[in-house]
C-alpha cells in the first residue's frame, strides 16, 4: 500500500475526517485537554463581558478563542498536540516533491549518572520494557534489534534496527535497516543535569520513509497518540530506573470489563 505524495492542501481533508472520526469516540479522558481549554475559555469570556471595558473586551476575545478551541472537535492536529514537540519538517526531495519528516522529541530528567543510565539503556531487556507501550524489542543477532509493533491493519509492523553511532555515556543512534513500511531512525542523549538533578535524557524518533507511507501517515501507524511516543518511553525508562518498576493499573478492580479494567 504505497501512498502517493499529495500537495499539503489535499491532505487536510483526510486529516479532518480522521479527527472527526476520533472526536466521536472521545471518552472523558481524551476530553481532558479540551475541557481544560473550555474551562479557561468560559471563565475569561464571562469575566471579560462582565467588565465591558476595553481590557474586558480583550479578555473576552481571548476567552472566546479558547472556548471555541475547547468545544470544537475537528481541530488542527497542532492545536490538539499543543505542548508536545511534534514537528513536521518539509524536506525537498527531487525537483517537485516535498516529503514530510516527522520528528518526535522529548527530554526528561532523572536520578543517576550519565554513564550508569547509558549502561542501563544498553541492557537488551531495558529497551523492551521501555518501549513496551507500543513495540516489542528483541535482540536478533548480528547486533541488530528487532522492533515489532503489533496489530497494525491486522498484522504486525516490524523492522530491524542497527546501532550506527555510539558514544558510551553520551549518545546512541540507531536506524532501521532493510525493507520496512516504516523506515525510521532515532537517538538518545545523556547529559549531566545541574545540582543534584542527575541526568537529562533526550529521546528523538524521526520517521522518514522514502517511497513508503509518508510523514504523518507513517506516524499514524504507531497508534492513537504518536505525539506521546517519545515522552511515554522516557517516563517508562525513568520509572524503571528510579523506582524499579513501571507504574501501571492493569488489571484494576472496577465494575466493568468482567470486574477489571485497564
Amino acid at each position, binding site marked *: 500500500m504505497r501512498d502517493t505524495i499529495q500537495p499539503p492542501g489535499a491532505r487536510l481533508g483526510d486529516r479532518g475526517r480522521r479527527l472527526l472520526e476520533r472526536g466521536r469516540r472521545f*471518552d*472523558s*479522558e481524551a*476530553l*481532558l*485537554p*479540551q*475541557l*481544560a*481549554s*473550555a*474551562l*479557561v*475559555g*468560559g*471563565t*475569561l469570556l*464571562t*469575566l471579560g463581558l462582565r467588565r465591558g471595558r476595553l481590557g474586558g473586551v480583550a479578555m473576552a476575545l481571548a476567552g472566546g478563542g479558547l*472556548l471555541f478551541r*475547547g*468545544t470544537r472537535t475537528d481541530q488542527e492536529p497542532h492545536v490538539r498536540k*499543543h*505542548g508536545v514537540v511534534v514537528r513536521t519538517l518539509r524536506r525537498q526531495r527531487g525537483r517537485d516533491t516535498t516529503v514530510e519528516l516527522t520528528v518526535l522529541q522529548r527530554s526528561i*530528567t*532523572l*536520578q543517576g549518572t550519565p554513564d550508569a543510565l547509558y549502561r542501563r539503556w544498553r541492557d537488551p531487556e531495558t529497551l523492551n520494557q521501555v518501549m513496551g507501550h507500543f513495540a516489542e524489542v528483541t535482540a536478533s543477532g548480528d547486533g541488530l534489534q528487532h522492533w515489532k509493533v503489533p496489530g497494525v491493519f491486522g498484522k504486525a509492523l516490524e523492522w530491524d534496527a542497527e546501532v550506527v553511532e555510539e558514544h558510551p555515556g553520551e549518545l546512541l543512534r540507531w536506524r532501521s535497516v532493510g525493507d520496512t513500511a516504516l523506515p525510521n531512525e532515532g537517538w538518545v542523549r545523556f547529559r549531566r543535569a545541574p545540582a*543534584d*538533578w*542527575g541526568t537529562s535524557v533526550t529521546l528523538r524518533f524521526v520517521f522518514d520513509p522514502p517511497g513508503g507511507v509518508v510523514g504523518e501517515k507513517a506516524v499514524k501507524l504507531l497508534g492513537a*497518540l504518536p505525539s*506521546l511516543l517519545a*515522552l*511515554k518511553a522516557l*517516563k517508562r525508562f*525513568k*520509572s524503571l530506573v*528510579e*523506582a*524499579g*518498576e*513501571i*507504574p*501501571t*493499573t*492493569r*488489571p*484494576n*478492580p*472496577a*465494575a*466493568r*470489563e*468482567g*470486574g*477489571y*479494567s485497564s
Partner: protein
Amino acid sequence: MRALCWNGINDLGVETVGDPRIVNPRDVILQVKMSTTCGSDLHFIDGYIPSMRKGDVIGHEFMGTVVETGPEVKKVHVGDRVVVPSFICCGSCWYCQHDLWSLCDNTNPKGELQEPLFGYQTAGIYGYTHAFGGYAGAHAQFVRVPHADTDCFQVPEGVTDEQALFLSDAVPTGYMGADFCGIQPGQTVAVWGCGGVGLMAQKAAFLLGAERVVGIDRYPERLKLAREQVGAETISYEEVDSVLDVLKELTGGRGPDACIDAVGMEAHGTGVVAAVDRARQALHLQSDRGQALRQAILACRKGGTLSVLGVYGVMDAFPMGVIMNKGLTVRSAQQHGQKYLPRLLEHVVKGELDPSFLATHRFSLEDAPRGYELFKKKQDGCVRAVFLPN
C-alpha cells in the same frame, strides 16, 4: 470483592468487582479495615473534575491489614496493621527525596493527561480520576498499594484504627498547611473551613506553637467542634457583617499572621454533562470558592503567609496585586503525607493529637452511598462518614 463505584455523575453504587492482585513487585494487598469520605471526592462525584470512568472504585483515605506482599517488598509483612497516605509515592525520585511527596514523578501511569492542565504531572492517588493515575480506590474490601515499603506506615500498639485512619489524608493535609505558615510563638492563625482538614489545620497550628487560632465556617456543629475539640475561637461568617472586621478586632487591627484556606470545593447543581455548560457551572462555582480565598488574602496581615489547602481548578481573577502589595508569602500543595506520618503517629502516641472525633458517622460498605449523601449535604452534623467494609 465488594466496592463503592462511580457509575456516573452523582451515581454511586456498591458493586461486585474483581479482587486486586499484586501487579508490580513492590505492591501489597491490603484488607481495608476503615476508609472515609473526603471533600475532594465530591468534585468528581459531581462531575466537576473530568476523567472518571463508569465503574471506577473510589476512596483515598484508608487503613487496613496487609494480606499479601510482592516479591520486592522488604519492610512490610503480612499481618501488619498500616495506614497509607492517599498519594502513591516511589520514594526514590528527586521530588520524593526532597519531601515533596505528592509531586512524585513515578507513580502516575497516565500523567500525560495532566500536562495540558498543570504543565507537569503529579503523583497518582487511589480512586481519584484517571488524570491522577486511575488507581482503584479504597472504599472496598481490598486495595492494592504500590511501593508498599515507602507508602505503608505501621500503626503502633495503642493507636486505634480510627485515629490511624485520618492520618491517611485529613491530618497530614491540615498539619502541612500549618507547617507552611512557619508559625512563631505568640502568633495568630486564621483557618477558613472547619471540615476534617480545617479542624486538623487548627489543631496543628496549636501543636506548632500558635497562641491563637480562629476557625471560620457557617455550620454551627463544625464551629462547636473547633471550639470544643481544638480550642479555637470561631467566626460564623453568616452571623457577622464582615469576617475581615472581626479578625482585625481580634488581632488589635493587625490581622492574622497566617491564613489557611481549607475550604474544599462545595457541591452545587447536578447532572450537567456538556463541556461548555460544565465550564459555566464551574465558573459559578469558582466565584463561590474564590470568596474564601480572597477573604483570606485581604485578612492576612502585611508580610504574612497564605497557605492554600482548598482544592482549586482553574482559578480566575486571582488578586495577585493584593498579594504583591502586602508582601504575602503564598504556599500550597496536595498533602506530602509521607513526610509527616512518623511525627503524626508520635503525636498520637503521646496523646497530643486524637483525630478520631472527626468520625461522626459509621456505615457498612454496603451503605456507603447513604454515607456520601449525608456527608455531601452535611446533614445530621456529618463531618466525616467512616466505612467498615469487612
